């Protein structure tokens, strides 16, 4: 029996661990009825922490520290790694064809190839020095350019754009951050939260421009040296970094005739419409039996969970993936920020589709009532439903993020404190703390 996993990200690694938890193998050769696992990846660096690239850019750690596993770890996991690009999946023959025309057969296949940055589609976008942040190689490329240049222009929204801004700024570059809309990450953050982030960026001498649409990257000798804006303004720069959203890498699945919407459509068992082919992670659009909808998450934790569930199912279990409350912790302009459940709505002019570190669920549910309290850098926003808290954003002090994660994910009945939460000038943090302590003492 041969399991083949395409993609060396967290979903793929979690799948291998899950399969090996069911089928520990002595030789891994596939002989004598043993289960063989083959991991196919096109990223020359294999498995590393993609979200950690942000801290590599700021210089908080060096690149080698991003690799969680040693060769010995991989040896213990007992799989074969094949570096290469898959050209096509021949479903009837249960075979994969590589770019170099060699073939690899499979019994069960997992597609966990992730997502990729949407391209910047303006004239000059293909010039040297126009950069994205998908992979380790991209991060190295950015640092190489940052070492040689003085001024950067960053285009886009969401977490990745801010990671680019912060990384380039911490490397000593002067940074112009262009926002097409009137504020940062408008479909997840409220006005006050966007203002906190923008204010902190300004304090770090980041030049923010709203309603600024880049229409051309200008260049000299094949290298980017400026950006032209819709309003006629031009900005001189040494590099242009962009993060305008991501797109699940569905090409392979599409060519193979698998069912696709925005991502590869999978049922709650992470199975595609071909029962021998599974999908997990950023490329998968997973069916949620609780809501009856299929959604995309671009988050580390769901990718790991999906990889694990897919692996168990490939190994013969029958386990449903139950989507947990979308949850992410990130750092926005140096401020640790936790986003839980439903917090925003609508679309963001700076993003096309979903961003990395984002979940479609964050913008799903309609009317709810927000209770807010906040100071300069400690800010808390709750979205309060009839009987439960639907979502929360915690910026700065994180003491309440763990309790809120639990209160939201377990749909705790907050009726006893609802009125107090919604009272004018409510001390929301105190009310939540009191509720949490009381719940804890009873459980």
């Amino acid at each position, binding site marked *: 029996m041969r399991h083949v996993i395409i993609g060396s990200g967290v979903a793929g690694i979690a799948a291998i661990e899950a399969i090996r938890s069911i089928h520990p193998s002595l030789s891994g050769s596939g002989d004598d009825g043993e289960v063989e696992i083959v991991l196919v990846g096109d990223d020359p660096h294999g498995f590393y922490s993609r979200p950690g690239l942000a801290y590599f850019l700021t210089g908080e750690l060096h690149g080698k520290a*991003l690799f*969680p596993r040693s060769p010995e770890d991989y040896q213990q996991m007992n799989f074969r790694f094949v570096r290469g690009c898959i050209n096509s999946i021949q479903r009837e023959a249960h075979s994969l064809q590589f770019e170099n025309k060699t073939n690899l057969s499979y019994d069960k296949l997992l597609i966990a190839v992730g997502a990729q940055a949407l391209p910047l589609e303006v004239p000059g976008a293909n010039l040297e020095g126009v950069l994205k942040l998908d992979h380790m190689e991209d991060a190295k490329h950015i640092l190489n350019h940052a070492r040689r240049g003085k001024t950067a222009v960053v285009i886009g929204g969401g977490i990745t754009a801010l990671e680019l801004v912060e990384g380039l700024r911490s490397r000593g570059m002067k940074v112009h951050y262009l926002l097409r809309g009137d504020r940062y990450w408008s479909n997840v953050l409220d006005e006050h939260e966007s203002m906190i982030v923008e204010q902190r960026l300004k304090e770090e001498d980041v030049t923010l421009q709203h309603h600024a649409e880049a229409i051309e990257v200008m260049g000299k000798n094949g290298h980017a040296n400026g950006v032209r804006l819709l309003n006629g303004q031009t900005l001189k720069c040494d590099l242009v970094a962009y993060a305008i959203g991501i797109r699940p890498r569905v090409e392979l699945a599409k060519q193979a005739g698998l069912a696709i919407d925005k991502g590869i459509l999978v049922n709650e068992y992470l199975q595609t419409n071909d029962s021998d082919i599974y999908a997990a992670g950023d490329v998968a659009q997973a069916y949620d039996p609780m809501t009856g909808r299929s959604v995309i998450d671009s988050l580390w934790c769901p990718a790991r969970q999906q990889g694990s569930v897919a692996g168990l199912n490939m190994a013969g279990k029958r386990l449903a993936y139950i989507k*947990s409350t979308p949850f992410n912790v990130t*750092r926005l302009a140096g401020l640790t920020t936790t986003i839980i459940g439903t917090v925003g709505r609508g679309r963001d002019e700076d993003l096309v589709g979903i961003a990395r570190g984002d979940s479609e669920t964050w913008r799903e549910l309609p009317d709810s009532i927000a209770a807010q309290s906040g100071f300069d850098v400690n800010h808390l926003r709750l979205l309060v439903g009839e009987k439960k808290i639907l979502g929360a954003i915690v910026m700065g002090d994180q003491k309440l993020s763990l309790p809120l994660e639990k209160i939201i994910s377990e749909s705790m009945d907050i009726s006893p404190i609802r009125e107090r939460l919604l009272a004018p000038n409510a001390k929301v943090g105190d009310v939540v703390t009191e509720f949490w302590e009381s719940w804890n003492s009873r459980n």
Partner: protein
Amino acid sequence: MALKDLFKRDAYKHTVMYSGHVVPDPARCVQCGICTYNCPIGIDVRAHAWQGLPVIHSQCITCGECVARCPRGVLRFEQTDLFRKGAG
């Protein structure tokens, strides 16, 4: 805190060794490795976070570097029974 301070600062040093151990929340962890990178003893804190296991390690001096450096609030201290108030 200013960005430049954040990136250059030393982690908060605990003046008194904490009585307990470091506990991870795997749901928050993205395996970036800042914890392991900054551990003065060289403990692979990140591997504990992947497995959701407390850092119960004979050489851990509970200095707090990993807790303070983690950008995602994955790690926290938890008191051990031995040192809990009132414990023998």
